[in-house]
């Protein structure tokens, strides 16, 4: 088995390989791939012909994904807390994970950075890192679950997002808080308001009691233990309180938008 493993992908991290492979595809190809799955997949095998027009299969899958958003919103209990763990269970080293290499991770100068606050809020002032560090902080040791299936336990410290939203006078009846980040190719992601107001949803400034390193999203990440990892924005530049669904980097490529845990 060990020999087989080496033969498969010698010296290459399989996760990175898969990610790189997907990354190299233009978005259209990635979308087409879903479609290709239809004709190459079970339908063809079972019937010997392409019974389902591929674009209509894709439309159906998208509809079911929207239905799954609704089901998950219905299942979401705003009081259900993600399990917490003792510090001894923290995964070491905690994996760096993104759709790019660590070398390509944003390098943000903390002194120049400001968090922009936009949309349905009373106070649209931008926040410096020093100002944010003065807000009351909490620590959580929770499990980060990746859409790929792996998981890791980490320790994150920061200000509950719901406290910050209150502080800036956000309209918490709005549907989303939409984050824009500094990742290359422009990562962004919408967070439904109920999840934004969850007690464990956090504006994170520290990992394992240390100032958030570049690998994990300096200067600020949003830790959402009730969402899959790809909906935990890093290198945050701005947040916008909005009623509009503005899509997201991964959501637009087909990952389920709610993706709640």
């Amino acid at each position, binding site marked *: *088995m*060990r020999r*087989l*493993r080496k033969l*498969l992908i010698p010296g290459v991290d*399989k*996760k990175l390989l*898969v990610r790189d492979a*997907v990354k190299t*595809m233009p978005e259209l190809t*990635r979308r*087409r*791939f*879903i*479609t*290709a*799955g239809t004709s*190459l*997949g*079970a339908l063809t*095998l*079972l019937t010997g012909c392409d019974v389902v027009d591929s674009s209509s299969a894709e439309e*159906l*899958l*998208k509809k*079911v*994904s929207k239905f*799954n958003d609704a089901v*998950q919103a219905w*299942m*979401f*209990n705003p009081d*259900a*807390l*993600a*399990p917490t763990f003792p510090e001894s269970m923290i995964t070491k080293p905690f994996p760096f994970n993104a759709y790019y290499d660590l070398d390509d991770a944003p390098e943000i100068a903390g002194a120049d950075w400001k968090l922009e606050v936009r949309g349905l809020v009373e106070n649209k002032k931008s926040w410096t890192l020093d100002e944010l560090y003065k807000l009351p902080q909490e620590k959580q040791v929770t*499990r980060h*679950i*990746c*859409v*790929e*299936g*792996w*998981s890791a336990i980490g320790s994150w410290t920061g200000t509950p997002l719901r406290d910050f939203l209150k502080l800036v006078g956000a309209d918490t009846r709005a549907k989303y808080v939409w984050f824009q980040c500094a990742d290359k190719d422009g990562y962004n992601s919408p967070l439904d308001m109920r999840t934004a107001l969850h007690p464990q949803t956090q504006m994170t400034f520290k990992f394992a009691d240390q100032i958030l390193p570049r690998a994990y999203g300096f200067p600020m990440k949003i830790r959402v*233990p*009730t969402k899959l990892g790809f909906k935990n924005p890093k290198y945050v530049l701005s947040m916008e309180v909005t009623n509009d669904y503005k899509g997201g980097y*991964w959501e637009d*490529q*087909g*990952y*389920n938008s709610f993706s*709640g*845990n």
Partner: protein
Amino acid sequence: MTSLAVSDHQAETAAPAKVIQPVWVRLVHWINAFAMILMIMSGWQIYNASPLFGFTFSHSITLGGWLGGALLWHFAAMWLLMVNGLIYLALGFATGRFRKKLLPITPGGVIADTKAALTFKLSHDDLSKYNSVQKLLYAGIITVGVVIVLSGLSMWKPVQLHWLVSLFGGYDIARYVHFTCMALIVAFLVIHVALALLVPKSLRAMIIGR
């Protein structure tokens, strides 16, 4: 004369071969087969994103093209699998089919029928009656089906259903349980299809009922 006519009439209605697989069984069986194949092939693609073991599944036998596409398939087909499965379980209990067809399973019967099967002495004359090995395998695969759905649900909603995750001993263990159940189902599928082809009238019964 009259009595003769009546008995003739009775003979006529009794004459068509008795239904071995009622229509509801055939319906849920084939829907399940379809949903299961979608789940397995998309599941393999999802597995490839973060393999538990030192191998991945060939792209030619997976569904969805990439992780995102496979997840769309998996979380769509799961509804078909789950709703169909619940209907099967409900009717299986309500009609007494499980009790009549699958019970009793005795160790002695299983051993005797396994021996008979391996020496090709097992009778398939009455397809409406399962032998002990069949009873064990069918009851077993139903259980595996329940466990794979529960472990899948616990991975899908590890916070909302954290009690279910605890039942499996944690998120990471639930992944292995889910994979193991898949492997058991695939193994069952291989044997099941091979035997159905060896005894074609059983396949016919699952299609037209008798």
